[in-house]
Protein backbone atom coordinates (compact mmCIF):
# COMPACT_ATOMS: atom_id res chain seq x y z
CA UNK A 1 0.00 0.00 0.00
CA UNK A 2 1.56 3.32 -0.98
CA UNK A 3 1.67 6.16 1.54
CA UNK A 4 -0.94 8.23 -0.30
CA UNK A 5 -3.42 5.41 -0.31
CA UNK A 6 -2.73 4.84 3.37
CA UNK A 7 -3.43 8.49 4.13
CA UNK A 8 -6.57 8.21 2.05
CA UNK A 9 -7.84 5.22 4.00
CA UNK A 10 -6.93 6.90 7.27
CA UNK A 11 -8.97 9.97 6.34
CA UNK A 12 -12.06 7.75 6.23
CA UNK A 13 -12.23 7.44 10.05
CA UNK A 14 -14.97 10.07 10.33
CA UNK A 15 -17.04 8.76 7.42
CA UNK A 16 -16.63 5.20 8.73
CA UNK A 17 -17.83 6.06 12.23
CA UNK A 18 -20.83 7.88 10.72
CA UNK A 19 -21.71 4.84 8.54
CA UNK A 20 -21.22 7.14 5.55
CA UNK A 21 -19.06 4.73 3.53
CA UNK A 22 -19.96 2.12 0.93
CA UNK A 23 -19.80 -1.58 1.92
CA UNK A 24 -16.54 -1.94 -0.04
CA UNK A 25 -14.95 1.03 1.67
CA UNK A 26 -16.08 -0.30 5.03
CA UNK A 27 -14.31 -3.58 4.32
CA UNK A 28 -11.11 -1.85 3.20
CA UNK A 29 -11.19 0.42 6.23
CA UNK A 30 -11.79 -2.44 8.66
CA UNK A 31 -8.83 -4.25 7.16
CA UNK A 32 -6.76 -1.11 7.72
CA UNK A 33 -7.98 -0.95 11.34
CA UNK A 34 -6.43 -4.33 12.01
CA UNK A 35 -2.99 -2.81 11.33
CA UNK A 36 -3.45 0.57 12.95
CA UNK A 37 -3.68 0.91 16.74
CA UNK A 38 -4.00 4.69 16.52
CA UNK A 39 -6.95 4.31 14.14
CA UNK A 40 -8.72 1.89 16.47
CA UNK A 41 -8.30 4.34 19.33
CA UNK A 42 -9.62 7.15 17.15
CA UNK A 43 -12.59 5.05 16.04
CA UNK A 44 -13.43 4.25 19.68
CA UNK A 45 -13.38 7.94 20.63
CA UNK A 46 -15.25 9.16 17.56
CA UNK A 47 -17.91 6.47 18.03
CA UNK A 48 -18.40 7.70 21.56
CA UNK A 49 -18.73 11.21 20.12
CA UNK A 50 -21.21 10.17 17.43
CA UNK A 51 -23.32 8.34 19.99
CA UNK A 52 -23.74 11.65 21.82
CA UNK A 53 -25.25 13.10 18.65
CA UNK A 54 -27.80 10.30 18.79
CA UNK A 55 -28.44 10.62 22.51
CA UNK A 56 -29.06 14.34 22.04
CA UNK A 57 -32.22 13.62 20.05
CA UNK A 58 -33.58 11.00 22.46
CA UNK A 59 -37.33 10.63 22.43
CA UNK A 60 -39.67 8.13 24.03
CA UNK A 61 -41.11 5.46 21.73
CA UNK A 62 -44.74 4.34 21.90
CA UNK A 63 -45.12 2.43 25.19
CA UNK A 64 -46.25 -0.75 23.39
CA UNK A 65 -42.71 -1.22 22.05
CA UNK A 66 -41.43 -2.43 25.40
CA UNK A 67 -43.89 -5.29 25.68
CA UNK A 68 -43.13 -6.36 22.17
CA UNK A 69 -39.35 -6.28 22.72
CA UNK A 70 -39.64 -8.17 26.02
CA UNK A 71 -41.81 -10.80 24.33
CA UNK A 72 -39.35 -11.20 21.47
CA UNK A 73 -36.26 -11.61 23.65
CA UNK A 74 -37.95 -14.50 25.44
CA UNK A 75 -37.92 -16.32 22.10
CA UNK A 76 -34.45 -15.17 21.08
CA UNK A 77 -31.38 -17.28 21.73
CA UNK A 78 -28.34 -15.35 22.93
CA UNK A 79 -24.95 -15.68 21.31
CA UNK A 80 -22.23 -17.28 23.43
CA UNK A 81 -19.24 -15.15 24.41
CA UNK A 82 -16.72 -14.89 21.61
CA UNK A 83 -15.22 -18.32 21.11
CA UNK A 84 -11.49 -18.67 21.68
CA UNK A 85 -9.62 -17.93 18.48
CA UNK A 86 -7.66 -20.78 16.98
CA UNK A 87 -4.22 -19.36 16.27
CA UNK A 88 -3.63 -19.72 12.56
CA UNK A 89 -0.10 -19.69 11.34
CA UNK A 90 -0.22 -19.81 7.62
CA UNK A 91 3.13 -21.56 7.35
CA UNK A 92 2.04 -24.65 9.23
CA UNK A 93 -1.68 -24.66 9.77
CA UNK A 94 -4.02 -27.15 8.14
CA UNK A 95 -5.23 -24.18 6.12
CA UNK A 96 -1.87 -23.99 4.36
CA UNK A 97 -1.89 -27.73 3.71
CA UNK A 98 -5.32 -27.54 2.18
CA UNK A 99 -4.29 -24.61 0.10
CA UNK A 100 -1.43 -26.45 -1.53
CA UNK A 101 -3.74 -29.41 -2.07
CA UNK A 102 -6.47 -27.27 -3.57
CA UNK A 103 -7.78 -29.35 -6.39
CA UNK A 104 -9.78 -29.16 -9.56
CA UNK A 105 -8.98 -25.69 -10.71
CA UNK A 106 -10.88 -25.06 -13.89
CA UNK A 107 -9.90 -22.20 -16.13
CA UNK A 108 -12.62 -21.12 -18.46
CA UNK A 109 -12.94 -18.61 -21.21
CA UNK A 110 -15.54 -15.95 -20.77
CA UNK A 111 -18.26 -17.76 -22.68
CA UNK A 112 -17.74 -20.82 -20.50
CA UNK A 113 -17.91 -18.68 -17.40
CA UNK A 114 -21.22 -17.32 -18.52
CA UNK A 115 -22.58 -20.81 -19.13
CA UNK A 116 -21.69 -21.93 -15.62
CA UNK A 117 -23.10 -18.75 -14.21
CA UNK A 118 -26.42 -19.16 -15.91
CA UNK A 119 -26.73 -22.65 -14.45
CA UNK A 120 -25.65 -21.44 -11.04
CA UNK A 121 -27.90 -18.43 -11.19
CA UNK A 122 -30.83 -20.66 -11.99
CA UNK A 123 -29.99 -22.92 -9.07
CA UNK A 124 -29.81 -19.93 -6.77
CA UNK A 125 -33.07 -18.61 -8.15
CA UNK A 126 -32.93 -15.21 -9.75
CA UNK A 127 -29.67 -13.46 -9.03
CA UNK A 128 -30.19 -10.17 -7.30
CA UNK A 129 -29.17 -6.98 -9.01
CA UNK A 130 -26.11 -6.84 -6.77
CA UNK A 131 -25.11 -10.37 -7.80
CA UNK A 132 -25.76 -9.61 -11.44
CA UNK A 133 -23.60 -6.51 -11.13
CA UNK A 134 -20.84 -8.52 -9.45
CA UNK A 135 -21.02 -11.20 -12.14
CA UNK A 136 -20.85 -8.57 -14.88
CA UNK A 137 -17.92 -6.86 -13.23
CA UNK A 138 -15.95 -10.08 -12.76
CA UNK A 139 -16.59 -11.35 -16.28
CA UNK A 140 -15.75 -7.99 -17.80
CA UNK A 141 -12.42 -7.93 -15.98
CA UNK A 142 -11.07 -10.49 -18.48
CA UNK A 143 -9.19 -12.62 -15.95
CA UNK A 144 -12.33 -14.34 -14.66
CA UNK A 145 -11.95 -17.90 -13.40
CA UNK A 146 -14.33 -20.49 -12.10
CA UNK A 147 -13.41 -23.03 -9.42
CA UNK A 148 -15.63 -25.78 -8.13
CA UNK A 149 -15.13 -27.39 -4.74
CA UNK A 150 -17.09 -30.10 -3.03
CA UNK A 151 -17.18 -31.36 0.54
CA UNK A 152 -18.96 -34.66 1.12
CA UNK A 153 -20.66 -33.44 4.29
CA UNK A 154 -21.53 -30.00 3.08
CA UNK A 155 -22.18 -29.86 -0.63
CA UNK A 156 -20.72 -28.15 -3.64
CA UNK A 157 -19.75 -24.55 -4.07
CA UNK A 158 -18.58 -22.60 -7.08
CA UNK A 159 -16.36 -19.55 -6.96
CA UNK A 160 -16.24 -17.02 -9.76
CA UNK A 161 -13.30 -14.73 -9.26
CA UNK A 162 -11.20 -12.04 -10.82
CA UNK A 163 -8.08 -10.76 -9.17
CA UNK A 164 -8.09 -7.59 -11.25
CA UNK A 165 -11.73 -6.88 -10.28
CA UNK A 166 -10.71 -7.78 -6.71
CA UNK A 167 -13.89 -9.81 -6.29
CA UNK A 168 -15.02 -13.38 -5.78
CA UNK A 169 -18.61 -14.53 -5.98
CA UNK A 170 -19.44 -17.74 -4.10
CA UNK A 171 -22.48 -19.58 -5.39
CA UNK A 172 -24.10 -22.78 -4.27
CA UNK A 173 -27.28 -24.63 -5.06
CA UNK A 174 -27.04 -27.61 -2.72
CA UNK A 175 -25.37 -26.48 0.47
CA UNK A 176 -26.56 -28.46 3.49
CA UNK A 177 -27.88 -26.40 6.40
CA UNK A 178 -25.16 -25.58 8.94
CA UNK A 179 -25.35 -27.60 12.17
CA UNK A 180 -27.87 -26.25 14.64
CA UNK A 181 -26.67 -23.04 16.32
CA UNK A 182 -24.00 -22.53 13.65
CA UNK A 183 -23.45 -20.60 10.45
CA UNK A 184 -21.10 -20.94 7.51
CA UNK A 185 -18.64 -18.07 7.45
CA UNK A 186 -16.32 -17.10 4.61
CA UNK A 187 -12.83 -15.70 5.23
CA UNK A 188 -10.21 -14.02 3.10
CA UNK A 189 -6.89 -15.56 3.99
CA UNK A 190 -3.74 -13.53 3.42
CA UNK A 191 -1.20 -12.08 5.81
CA UNK A 192 -4.31 -11.70 7.96
CA UNK A 193 -7.56 -13.60 8.08
CA UNK A 194 -10.67 -11.44 7.71
CA UNK A 195 -14.32 -12.30 7.76
CA UNK A 196 -15.98 -12.01 4.36
CA UNK A 197 -19.46 -12.64 5.73
CA UNK A 198 -21.89 -15.42 6.53
CA UNK A 199 -23.32 -17.86 4.02
CA UNK A 200 -26.85 -18.75 5.01
CA UNK A 201 -28.33 -21.22 2.54
CA UNK A 202 -32.03 -21.04 1.84
CA UNK A 203 -33.14 -24.44 0.63
CA UNK A 204 -29.48 -25.10 -0.23
CA UNK A 205 -29.11 -21.94 -2.27
CA UNK A 206 -26.80 -19.12 -1.35
CA UNK A 207 -24.58 -16.50 -2.89
CA UNK A 208 -21.94 -14.32 -1.28
CA UNK A 209 -19.90 -11.57 -2.82
CA UNK A 210 -16.37 -11.34 -1.41
CA UNK A 211 -14.43 -8.14 -2.05
CA UNK A 212 -10.80 -7.44 -1.37
CA UNK A 213 -9.40 -10.75 -2.58
CA UNK A 214 -6.41 -9.12 -4.22
CA UNK A 215 -4.33 -9.25 -1.05
CA UNK A 216 -5.56 -12.77 -0.19
CA UNK A 217 -4.13 -16.17 -1.02
CA UNK A 218 -7.43 -17.91 -0.63
CA UNK A 219 -11.01 -17.72 0.52
CA UNK A 220 -12.00 -20.37 3.05
CA UNK A 221 -15.34 -21.44 4.52
CA UNK A 222 -15.64 -22.54 8.14
CA UNK A 223 -18.50 -23.52 10.43
CA UNK A 224 -18.82 -20.98 13.25
CA UNK A 225 -21.21 -20.35 16.15
CA UNK A 226 -24.41 -18.69 14.91
CA UNK A 227 -23.83 -15.08 13.95
CA UNK A 228 -20.19 -15.71 13.05
CA UNK A 229 -16.85 -15.13 14.77
CA UNK A 230 -14.21 -12.42 14.60
CA UNK A 231 -11.60 -15.01 13.68
CA UNK A 232 -12.11 -18.61 12.56
CA UNK A 233 -12.50 -21.12 15.37
CA UNK A 234 -12.25 -24.24 13.21
CA UNK A 235 -10.52 -25.50 10.10
CA UNK A 236 -12.04 -24.67 6.73
CA UNK A 237 -14.37 -27.14 5.10
CA UNK A 238 -13.84 -25.60 1.66
CA UNK A 239 -11.00 -23.49 0.33
CA UNK A 240 -10.75 -21.52 -2.89
CA UNK A 241 -7.27 -20.49 -3.88
CA UNK A 242 -7.04 -16.98 -5.33
CA UNK A 243 -4.95 -17.14 -8.47
Amino acid at each position, binding site marked *: MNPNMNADVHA*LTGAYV*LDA*VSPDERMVFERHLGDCDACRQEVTELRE*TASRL*GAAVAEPPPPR*LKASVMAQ*IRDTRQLPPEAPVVPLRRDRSPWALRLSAAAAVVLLVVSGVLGVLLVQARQSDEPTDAQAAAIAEIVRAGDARVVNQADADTGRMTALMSRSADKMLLLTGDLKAAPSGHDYQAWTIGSKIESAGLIQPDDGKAALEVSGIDAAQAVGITIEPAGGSDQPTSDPILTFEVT
Partner: protein
Amino acid sequence: MVERVRRVREDQAAGPDTAELMRRVARGDEAAFEQIYDLLIGPVYGAVRRIVRDPAQSEEVAQEVMVELWRTAARYSPERGSVLTFAMTLAHRRAVDRVRSAQAAADREDHVGRREASRPFDEVAEQVTARFEQEQVRRCLQTLTELQRESVVLAYYGGRTYKEVGELLETPLGTIKTRLRDGLIRLRDCLGVVG
Protein backbone atom coordinates in the same frame (compact mmCIF):
# COMPACT_ATOMS: atom_id res chain seq x y z
CA MET B 1 -6.47 6.90 27.38
CA VAL B 2 -9.14 4.27 27.87
CA GLU B 3 -9.18 5.06 31.58
CA ARG B 4 -9.79 8.72 30.88
CA VAL B 5 -12.55 7.93 28.43
CA ARG B 6 -14.22 5.71 30.95
CA ARG B 7 -13.97 8.22 33.76
CA VAL B 8 -15.64 10.91 31.72
CA ARG B 9 -18.30 8.48 30.63
CA GLU B 10 -19.15 7.47 34.19
CA ASP B 11 -19.39 11.09 35.24
CA GLN B 12 -21.84 11.73 32.47
CA ALA B 13 -23.89 8.62 32.97
CA ALA B 14 -24.29 8.69 36.71
CA GLY B 15 -26.76 5.96 37.48
CA PRO B 16 -26.83 2.19 37.28
CA ASP B 17 -23.59 0.53 36.21
CA THR B 18 -24.58 -0.35 32.68
CA ALA B 19 -21.54 -2.57 32.08
CA GLU B 20 -22.54 -4.69 35.09
CA LEU B 21 -26.14 -4.80 33.81
CA MET B 22 -24.84 -6.03 30.45
CA ARG B 23 -22.92 -8.83 32.17
CA ARG B 24 -26.19 -9.94 33.75
CA VAL B 25 -28.05 -9.60 30.44
CA ALA B 26 -25.40 -11.85 28.86
CA ARG B 27 -26.39 -14.52 31.37
CA GLY B 28 -30.01 -14.28 30.26
CA ASP B 29 -31.23 -12.00 33.06
CA GLU B 30 -34.47 -10.48 31.74
CA ALA B 31 -34.86 -8.08 34.66
CA ALA B 32 -31.42 -6.62 33.90
CA PHE B 33 -32.39 -6.32 30.25
CA GLU B 34 -35.50 -4.44 31.24
CA GLN B 35 -33.32 -1.88 33.05
CA ILE B 36 -31.05 -1.60 30.00
CA TYR B 37 -34.15 -1.11 27.85
CA ASP B 38 -35.42 1.70 30.06
CA LEU B 39 -32.03 3.43 30.03
CA LEU B 40 -31.33 3.15 26.31
CA ILE B 41 -34.61 3.08 24.44
CA GLY B 42 -34.99 6.89 24.39
CA PRO B 43 -31.63 7.54 22.69
CA VAL B 44 -32.02 4.49 20.42
CA TYR B 45 -35.54 5.32 19.31
CA GLY B 46 -34.77 9.05 18.98
CA ALA B 47 -31.75 8.46 16.73
CA VAL B 48 -33.54 5.85 14.62
CA ARG B 49 -36.59 8.05 14.24
CA ARG B 50 -34.45 11.00 13.18
CA ILE B 51 -32.85 8.92 10.41
CA VAL B 52 -35.70 6.64 9.31
CA ARG B 53 -38.48 9.22 9.86
CA ASP B 54 -41.44 6.90 9.30
CA PRO B 55 -42.76 6.14 12.83
CA ALA B 56 -43.83 2.54 12.14
CA GLN B 57 -40.52 1.67 10.50
CA SER B 58 -38.63 3.45 13.27
CA GLU B 59 -40.39 1.30 15.81
CA GLU B 60 -39.44 -1.84 13.89
CA VAL B 61 -35.80 -0.81 13.64
CA ALA B 62 -35.65 0.17 17.34
CA GLN B 63 -37.07 -3.25 18.21
CA GLU B 64 -34.44 -4.96 16.03
CA VAL B 65 -31.71 -2.98 17.77
CA MET B 66 -32.91 -3.85 21.28
CA VAL B 67 -33.30 -7.55 20.42
CA GLU B 68 -29.82 -7.50 18.86
CA LEU B 69 -28.51 -6.01 22.09
CA TRP B 70 -30.01 -8.93 23.97
CA ARG B 71 -28.67 -11.44 21.45
CA THR B 72 -25.13 -10.10 21.41
CA ALA B 73 -24.81 -9.02 25.07
CA ALA B 74 -22.03 -11.56 25.67
CA ARG B 75 -19.96 -9.92 22.91
CA TYR B 76 -20.02 -6.54 24.63
CA SER B 77 -16.69 -5.53 26.08
CA PRO B 78 -16.36 -2.39 28.25
CA GLU B 79 -12.83 -1.85 26.90
CA ARG B 80 -14.30 -1.04 23.50
CA GLY B 81 -16.66 1.68 24.70
CA SER B 82 -19.76 2.36 26.79
CA VAL B 83 -22.98 0.37 26.57
CA LEU B 84 -24.66 3.51 25.22
CA THR B 85 -22.13 3.68 22.39
CA PHE B 86 -22.48 -0.06 21.70
CA ALA B 87 -26.26 0.42 21.39
CA MET B 88 -26.06 3.66 19.40
CA THR B 89 -23.55 2.20 16.95
CA LEU B 90 -25.94 -0.66 16.33
CA ALA B 91 -28.90 1.72 16.08
CA HIS B 92 -27.22 4.04 13.58
CA ARG B 93 -26.02 1.16 11.40
CA ARG B 94 -29.47 -0.46 11.36
CA ALA B 95 -31.28 2.80 10.67
CA VAL B 96 -28.92 3.66 7.84
CA ASP B 97 -29.26 0.15 6.38
CA ARG B 98 -33.01 0.60 6.46
CA VAL B 99 -33.03 3.91 4.60
CA ARG B 100 -30.50 2.62 2.07
CA SER B 101 -32.44 -0.55 1.29
CA ALA B 102 -33.49 -0.80 -2.33
CA GLN B 103 -36.99 0.60 -1.97
CA ALA B 104 -35.97 3.47 0.21
CA ALA B 105 -33.09 4.25 -2.13
CA ALA B 106 -35.48 4.54 -5.05
CA ASP B 107 -37.75 6.86 -3.09
CA ARG B 108 -34.86 8.97 -1.99
CA GLU B 109 -33.52 9.29 -5.53
CA ASP B 110 -36.90 10.69 -6.45
CA HIS B 111 -37.02 13.16 -3.67
CA VAL B 112 -33.48 14.21 -3.08
CA GLY B 113 -33.45 17.04 -5.59
CA ARG B 114 -36.79 18.54 -4.72
CA ARG B 115 -36.40 18.10 -1.03
CA GLU B 116 -33.04 19.76 -0.91
CA ALA B 117 -34.24 22.52 -3.18
CA SER B 118 -37.24 23.28 -1.02
CA ARG B 119 -35.55 22.70 2.33
CA PRO B 120 -32.23 24.48 2.48
CA PHE B 121 -29.71 23.11 4.89
CA ASP B 122 -30.19 25.83 7.49
CA GLU B 123 -33.79 24.84 7.94
CA VAL B 124 -32.87 21.20 8.44
CA ALA B 125 -30.14 22.14 10.86
CA GLU B 126 -32.49 24.38 12.76
CA GLN B 127 -35.02 21.59 13.15
CA VAL B 128 -32.32 19.28 14.40
CA THR B 129 -30.76 21.77 16.76
CA ALA B 130 -34.10 23.04 18.04
CA ARG B 131 -34.84 19.56 19.32
CA PHE B 132 -31.56 18.98 21.04
CA GLU B 133 -32.21 18.07 24.61
CA GLN B 134 -28.60 18.30 25.47
CA GLU B 135 -27.43 21.84 25.44
CA GLN B 136 -23.85 20.66 25.48
CA VAL B 137 -24.11 18.86 22.17
CA ARG B 138 -25.81 21.84 20.61
CA ARG B 139 -23.20 24.21 21.93
CA CYS B 140 -20.41 21.97 20.68
CA LEU B 141 -21.94 21.65 17.22
CA GLN B 142 -21.74 25.43 17.04
CA THR B 143 -17.97 25.26 17.49
CA LEU B 144 -17.65 23.45 14.15
CA THR B 145 -17.08 25.29 10.91
CA GLU B 146 -20.19 25.54 8.78
CA LEU B 147 -18.96 22.88 6.35
CA GLN B 148 -17.95 20.52 9.17
CA ARG B 149 -21.34 20.93 10.82
CA GLU B 150 -23.33 20.51 7.62
CA SER B 151 -21.35 17.40 6.70
CA VAL B 152 -21.63 15.75 10.11
CA VAL B 153 -25.35 16.54 10.42
CA LEU B 154 -26.17 15.23 6.94
CA ALA B 155 -24.16 12.05 7.53
CA TYR B 156 -25.34 11.29 11.07
CA TYR B 157 -28.93 12.49 11.10
CA GLY B 158 -29.55 12.31 7.39
CA GLY B 159 -28.01 8.85 7.00
CA ARG B 160 -26.16 10.12 3.91
CA THR B 161 -22.99 8.59 2.53
CA TYR B 162 -20.08 11.01 2.23
CA LYS B 163 -20.54 10.83 -1.53
CA GLU B 164 -24.14 12.02 -1.18
CA VAL B 165 -22.98 14.70 1.24
CA GLY B 166 -20.45 15.83 -1.38
CA GLU B 167 -23.17 16.09 -4.02
CA LEU B 168 -25.60 17.90 -1.75
CA LEU B 169 -23.00 20.41 -0.64
CA GLU B 170 -21.31 20.58 -4.05
CA THR B 171 -17.97 19.96 -2.42
CA PRO B 172 -15.18 17.58 -3.52
CA LEU B 173 -15.26 14.16 -1.84
CA GLY B 174 -11.77 14.48 -0.39
CA THR B 175 -12.84 17.66 1.38
CA ILE B 176 -15.98 16.04 2.75
CA LYS B 177 -14.03 13.05 4.12
CA THR B 178 -11.65 15.41 5.86
CA ARG B 179 -14.44 17.63 7.21
CA LEU B 180 -16.30 14.64 8.66
CA ARG B 181 -13.19 13.56 10.52
CA ASP B 182 -12.13 17.09 11.60
CA GLY B 183 -15.68 17.86 12.64
CA LEU B 184 -15.99 14.77 14.82
CA ILE B 185 -12.57 15.40 16.35
CA ARG B 186 -13.58 18.94 17.24
CA LEU B 187 -16.86 17.68 18.71
CA ARG B 188 -14.98 15.02 20.66
CA ASP B 189 -12.69 17.63 22.18
CA CYS B 190 -15.55 19.98 22.95
CA LEU B 191 -17.64 17.24 24.56
CA GLY B 192 -14.67 16.12 26.60
CA VAL B 193 -14.85 12.54 25.38
CA VAL B 194 -11.06 12.35 25.75
CA GLY B 195 -11.01 14.13 29.10
